[in-house]
């Protein structure tokens, strides 16, 4: 899985997002750091923010192409 494909999925799920960045943490194409900054996260509990990100990447998760993912979400306010 390349980071570009994951970023595309996230862009589709968060079209309003300021920052969408996926970093391959180990170079192996299965450990990622996902960073999303979006006004949709404003006032939303961290758990709900991460659930939205998990849902956006549910496909590659279920397929087993993502072994490990770290998530960093930020609101804009």
């Amino acid at each position, binding site marked *: 899985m390349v980071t570009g494909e994951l970023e595309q999925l996230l862009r589709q799920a968060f079209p309003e997002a300021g920052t969408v960045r996926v970093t391959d943490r180990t170079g192996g194409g299965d450990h990622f750091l996902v960073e999303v900054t979006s006004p949709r996260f404003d006032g939303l509990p*961290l*758990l709900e923010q*991460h*659930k939205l990100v*998990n849902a956006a990447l*549910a496909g590659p*998760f279920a397929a087993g192409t993502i072994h*490990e993912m770290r*998530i960093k979400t930020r609101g804009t306010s």
Partner: protein
Amino acid sequence: MSEELNGRIKSVIDTSPVALFMKGTPQFVMCGNSERALQALRHAGAPVTAVDILPDPAIRQELATLSGWPTIPQVFINGELVGGADITEELAETGELERKLEDALGSDYREFAAERVVSVLVPA
């Protein structure tokens, strides 16, 4: 079998002040993310009830269905899902984890900060 397992997982979640579903045990952690969550909880002085999910893949499946959270580790305070390693770590850094623990368990929660390991599998 899966219904029994589901019930035992639920019971650990509901009856533990702080439940940590992890890979390995606090004495022998088998995954970096489980370690991060454990350290964040220790740092906050939380009483941790740990469940090793590795002995049976069914534990992980049942847990994910129950919580709606796809990955391990998972941290629950008073039956409520807090999140995985990233969230627990972030909440610990901002001091919000300690606030959550105080709200849920009382301001003297640190006095009960023992760690224990429980199994959700039927004893052989």
